[in-house]
């Protein structure tokens, strides 16, 4: 039996169309739009000005506090504007606009990074490099990575889990990265184990990526401390709490962090970024993005510079297919629908999904027939039908007492509801009100 988490979960159509497409380099964009709030936490502070010349990897916005991150210029060029543009959140956010210097050779020479296995830095240097390189969780949560690594001396973290689950349908960015950069990922894991004094690491991969499991097992052969766990295909296994439960059978307490059960979880993409930061001092300026959809001609995976407008990507795969009604930044289960393709790729963009008419429109919500499916599939053991009801009626105190705040917003309930009820919409809304009420109280 393959490991998995015990309660709830669904198995949506996988649609991993691009899993055999090698990651291509995107051509250098003419202009990049780099938002300064690409991560969870405090936005970064802009330290460049209009007309400034910037180099690749130069810090253009500096970390605004502990839970924040540096942002580096993805290209060499000139800052043309400091502007407000709509980003993936749908709101206007401050953004640094950089025009690529077409004459600057550094933009076009292919940097070569041969595998570098020796870890020469000590713990402090490693953490310093990760902090400086602007690395955030690349699985989509974009939590600044150095915060997770800042362990107190009395920490009891004994296991590092690498998240290679990629349970979202359609997305294959992590899958391709694992296939193509397996050795680098293993070194990245060793770097973290070295820095945090951890002696056990498990890479969790769902069994629909058998080739990645094989490749990583091979790459990890020389290091007995690193194991690869094949997991049953079940959404939302990529969620930290579910992944820890699946692999170690440890349960993160309500309101707690993985650290509370002695675990740190990092996405494979993050691990690769850490490898590059530590071994080659290369900041996070590009990432793998899956551009996909059922009607796209050349759906594929790309190395994309942060700040590249999504329309460049859409053009690269053959243009917007006829009848596209929804553009999703991320996967179909948790991704955000965006208004147009002017929005730039950020550190958290794992995929761009173009959805056509029949899948994009929601059906009319009908009466709840109390079938209980939402309760069965909720991985957190909540009762979505009840939470929706309470949120609809404005009973926020009861909503909070029914543990609405532990909802991970995976969307399994809305996905499965035969009456097409917008369960997660109401739960999200209720959660935001509870948050506001709590801040008002304090």
């Amino acid at each position: 039996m393959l490991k998995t988490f015990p309660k709830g979960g669904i198995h949506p159509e996988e649609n991993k169309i691009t899993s055999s497409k090698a990651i291509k380099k995107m051509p250098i964009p003419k202009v990049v739009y780099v938002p300064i709030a690409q991560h969870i936490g405090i936005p970064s502070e802009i330290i460049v000005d209009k007309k400034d010349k910037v180099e690749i990897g130069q810090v253009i916005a500096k970390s605004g506090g502990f839970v924040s991150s540096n942002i580096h210029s993805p290209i060499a060029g000139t800052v043309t504007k400091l502007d407000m543009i709509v980003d993936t959140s749908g709101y206007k956010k401050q953004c640094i606009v950089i025009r690529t210097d077409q004459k600057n050779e550094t933009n076009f020479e292919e940097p070569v990074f041969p595998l570098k296995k020796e870890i020469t830095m000590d713990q402090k240097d490693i953490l310093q490099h990760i902090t400086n390189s602007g690395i955030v969780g690349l699985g989509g949560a974009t939590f600044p990575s150095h915060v997770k690594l800042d362990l107190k001396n009395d920490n009891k973290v004994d296991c590092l889990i690498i998240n290679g689950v990629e349970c979202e349908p359609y997305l294959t960015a992590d899958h391709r990265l694992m296939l193509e950069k397996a050795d680098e990922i293993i070194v990245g894991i060793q770097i973290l184990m070295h820095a945090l004094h951890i002696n056990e690491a498990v890479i969790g991969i769902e069994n629909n990526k058998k080739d990645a499991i094989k490749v990583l097992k091979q790459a990890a052969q020389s290091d007995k401390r690193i194991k690869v766990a094949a997991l049953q295909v079940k959404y939302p296994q990529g969620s930290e709490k579910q992944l820890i439960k699946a692999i170690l059978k440890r349960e993160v307490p309500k309101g707690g962090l993985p650290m509370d059960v002695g675990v740190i979880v990092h996405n494979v993409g993050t691990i690769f970024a850490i490898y590059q930061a530590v071994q080659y001092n290369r900041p996070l300026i590009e990432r793998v993005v899956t551009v996909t959809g059922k009607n796209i001609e050349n759906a594929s995976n790309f190395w994309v510079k942060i700040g590249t407008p999504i329309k460049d990507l859409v053009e690269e795969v053959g243009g917007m297919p006829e009848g596209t009604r929804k553009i999703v930044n991320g996967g179909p289960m948790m991704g955000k629908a965006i208004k147009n393709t002017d929005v730039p790729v950020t550190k958290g963009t794992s995929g761009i999904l173009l959805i056509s008419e029949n899948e994009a429109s929601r059906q009319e919500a009908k009466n709840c027939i109390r079938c209980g499916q939402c309760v069965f599939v909720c991985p957190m053991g909540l009762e979505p039908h009840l939470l929706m009801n309470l949120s609809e009626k404005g009973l926020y105190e009861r909503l909070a007492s029914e543990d609405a705040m532990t909802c991970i917003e995976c969307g399994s309930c809305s996905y499965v509801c035969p009456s097409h009820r917008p369960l997660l919409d109401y739960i999200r809304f209720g959660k935001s009100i509870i948050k506001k009420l709590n801040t008002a109280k304090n």
Partner: protein
Amino acid sequence: MADPIIISASPHVHSARTSKKVMYDVLYALIPAFLVSIYVFGISALILTSVAVISCLVFEYIIQKYLLKTKVTITDGSALITGILLAFNLPSNLPIWMIIIGALIAIGVAKLSFGGLGYNIFNPALIGRVFLLVCFPVQMTSWPTAVENNLTLVDAVTGETTLGIIKEGLMYGETMSTISEQLPSTMELFIGITSGSAGEMSALALLLGGIFLIVRKVITWHIPITMLVTMGVMTGIFWLVNPEQYANPLIHLLSGGAILGAFYMATDLVTSPMTKKGMVIFAIGIAVITVVIRLFGAYPEGVSFAILIMNAFVPLIDKYFKPRRFGNKIKSKIM
């Protein structure tokens, strides 16, 4: 201009499951039992079912359109199912006007007056049946027996149900060994060559449909299996203590609508609990009440009463038997 881009919150995909599909799965599951009822009772079963279904649909239409002035929802399949289940719970020779009254009570009182699909507390078909049972006890308990020529109307031939024979026999002081001579064999009970309500006849056909429902994930095993096992264990204990006073568990399980109730009536999505723990409690409650009514009550069989009584407890069960919350009551410490 091209169609506008849709902005909505995640998730952006949906399982193809719809309420309608769920309802139609229930419908398919009822086909084998329906065929058996036609085979056993002839054309009267067909008439009964058609009348029940048509009157349920018509009442739902009339009440929603003219009385409540809301959207008419007769196409969602739920009134259709109520009609079939109502018919399955009635003797096939019941006068047509009584069937129509039963449908009116089921749809008008038990379903729509509570707010329609999803809001009713009690199983509509069972409310219809119990209403008729209380108002017309004679007609509701004279059952036609299986006929040779299954295309004739069979009002004349009436017989008692298995449980009815047992109850009456015990009342007159007979022992189980003498009574059992008049009973159909276990095999006959299983296949459905006996007398009783139109759809409760064949355990085999009902089980086929029930398994289909579980495979299609319309229902889970929790309610039917828990209910039947509890009934079997309880009646088994009584039977072991005194086999002359109490019928054996197989007779109980195969007659009196136990299987129909377990797979189709108790599992009604709307009127059963929503958590698996709750379902188990609910099913145990039904089984206990059924057995108590059958062994010690005035009625020979008690599945419908038991289900209705437990329906009333569903809100409470849902409130107190919640799913285990992830990460709850776990100490924030490393093992």
